[in-house]
């Protein structure tokens, strides 16, 4: 503090100088998603400096990965982004299959798209509900969870678990769909369609919500790419990247034949395949509102994908195919594959030395890089904006700390 005093007196003698307070938000804070601690240096209500402290949920999954075979590590990928466990399983399975140059059956491919997109809807619902909680309204959280419960029921029928499924594994799926599941999934999608408009009315176009999120935490496309932000955070800033379309060949092969538009604002407007609410006047591209809106569009996009996957899955003649053996021998070498998860691009790096146990396993988490940009966004905002900004990044601590 001393060097501030001997500054040029003329400028600051009339200024009302309040001393800086170091305030601790978390790690048990109700608004931060999980155990994330934010140290705010505040000057009155203005936050001059924010530093996130992570590592409270670190379970060293990577060290354990060096003692388990590829299929035995699947449950650990569940616990990383526990809101979208299916996407995590898919990411790890595809990475291993890329190393083995193994091709799953046609039926398994469509089933994977179906299950993964359904899990994306569930994850975005939690994101939307928790964001409403950050801004002070409690009801959307309960509406979101009511719908999510229905998806979890569907998953429970498929693989017996509601949160950490370990359903998609290396070489295929652990089980096929139970009879009548497709009709129940169809029923869910039909009744879910109008409810999306409810969420738009309740949050997206709500005047107070727009006031709390528009022009807050504006992330420029260059900074987003520089910090390695991915997923809705990147698309919220207008960068047109979606790995399902421009990812690695093995990942895009899974989605070829599916018609979908990437939810991003291209030359001034979002895709018009459905009736979406208009963008409010004072929302700038890259602010919290746009990140939230991109997630809401992706829910509708995922619903289309699920419908297409259901048709293709039911038309497939061949057998589903068995997953690989538990202790499958892995060829020496290393491979890296990123898949499009709800929070962003989740990368798995696998280094093997020829035995069935990998030498080194590395999970590149999307929320890890998304959160890295938060000090940049929170500089100079108000205290009440910090949960709004961190909430809009939709971070999950399990994925960050691994």
């Amino acid at each position, binding site marked *: 503090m001393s060097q501030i005093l001997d500054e040029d007196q003329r400028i600051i003698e009339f200024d009302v100088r309040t001393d800086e307070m170091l305030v601790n938000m978390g790690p048990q804070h109700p608004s931060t998603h999980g155990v994330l601690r934010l140290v705010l240096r505040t000057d009155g209500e203005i936050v001059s400096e924010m530093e996130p402290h*992570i*590592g409270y949920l*670190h379970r*060293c999954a*990577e*060290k354990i990965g060096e003692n388990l075979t590829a299929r035995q590590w699947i449950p650990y990928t569940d616990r990383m982004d526990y809101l979208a466990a299916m996407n995590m399983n898919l990411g790890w399975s595809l990475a291993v299959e*890329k*190393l083995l*140059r193994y091709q799953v059956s046609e039926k398994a491919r469509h089933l994977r798209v179906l299950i993964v997109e359904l899990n994306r809807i569930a994850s975005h619902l939690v994101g939307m509900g928790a964001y409403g909680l950050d801004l002070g309204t409690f009801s959307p959280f309960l509406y979101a969870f009511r719908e999510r419960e229905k998806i979890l029921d569907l998953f429970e029928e498929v693989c017996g678990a509601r949160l950490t499924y370990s359903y998609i594994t290396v070489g295929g799926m652990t089980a096929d769909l139970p009879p009548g599941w497709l009709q129940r999934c169809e029923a869910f999608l039909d009744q879910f369609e109008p409810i999306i408009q409810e969420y738009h009315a309740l949050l997206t176009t709500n005047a107070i919500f727009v006031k709390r999120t528009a022009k807050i935490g504006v992330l420029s496309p260059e*900074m987003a*790419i*520089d*910090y*390695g*932000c991915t997923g809705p955070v990147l698309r919220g800033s207008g*960068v047109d*990247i979606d790995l399902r379309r*421009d990812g*690695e060949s093995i990942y895009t092969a899974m989605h070829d034949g599916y018609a979908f538009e990437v939810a991003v604002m291209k030359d001034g407007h979002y895709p018009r395949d459905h009736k979406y609410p208009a963008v409010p006047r004072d929302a700038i591209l890259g602010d919290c509102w746009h990140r939230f809106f991109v997630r809401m569009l992706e829910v509708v996009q995922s619903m289309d994908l699920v419908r297409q996957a259901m048709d293709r899955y039911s038309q497939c003649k061949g057998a589903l195919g068995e997953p690989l053996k538990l202790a499958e021998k892995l060829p020496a*070498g*290393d*491979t*890296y594959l*990123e898949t499009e998860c709800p929070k962003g*691009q989740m*990368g798995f*790096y696998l*280094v093997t030395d020829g035995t069935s146990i990998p*030498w*080194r396993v*590395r999970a*590149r988490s999307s929320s*890890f*890089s998304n959160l*890295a940009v938060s000090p940049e966004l929170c500089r100079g905002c108000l205290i009440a904006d910090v949960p709004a900004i961190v909430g809009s990044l939709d971070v999950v601590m399990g994925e960050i*700390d*691994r």
Partner: protein
Amino acid sequence: MRGTDFISELEAAVDGALVGRDLDAVDPWLEIAADKLLETCRWLKDSCEIRFDGLQCITAIDWFEPDPKKAAKVEWEPHTEVVYHLWSTKARASLVLKVRLPRWQGNEQGKIPELSSVVSVWRGADWHEREVFDLSGVQFNGHPDLRRILCPEDWDGYPLRKDYEMPLEYHGMRGR
């Protein structure tokens, strides 16, 4: 996926950088000399015609076989390898760079190897390098705030090294 012209371009731009390569692996990679790393990365991001503007991930692999029996059969000798995964958002292309470092600086136990930080090139590298420093013990010179990110501040040892021993006690909590 990298044409030979790209490699010749790279060698022309930064001489002595390319030390090794393997183009027919599942993910072709190039090996870069440790001291030329920062220069290469700056060239890749700014002046190369495929702009690698995104740093996906930095990983450190500890090539060291702890028990002597297997160590005899292994063909590589112990070293630490830092792997950079880059990708270009415009050209949708990805690239893997590897850098070979000794396990300990000057081979005496306890002094961790040095490497120049690429935070000045990609801001995203900040937290990735802090994690590599925290878990695998690689000192990144030029990093603005190199502290442990996942383990507590005063944790000793680098967990992801093959010869890492779990401490018996930490602030009164029993380790084993």
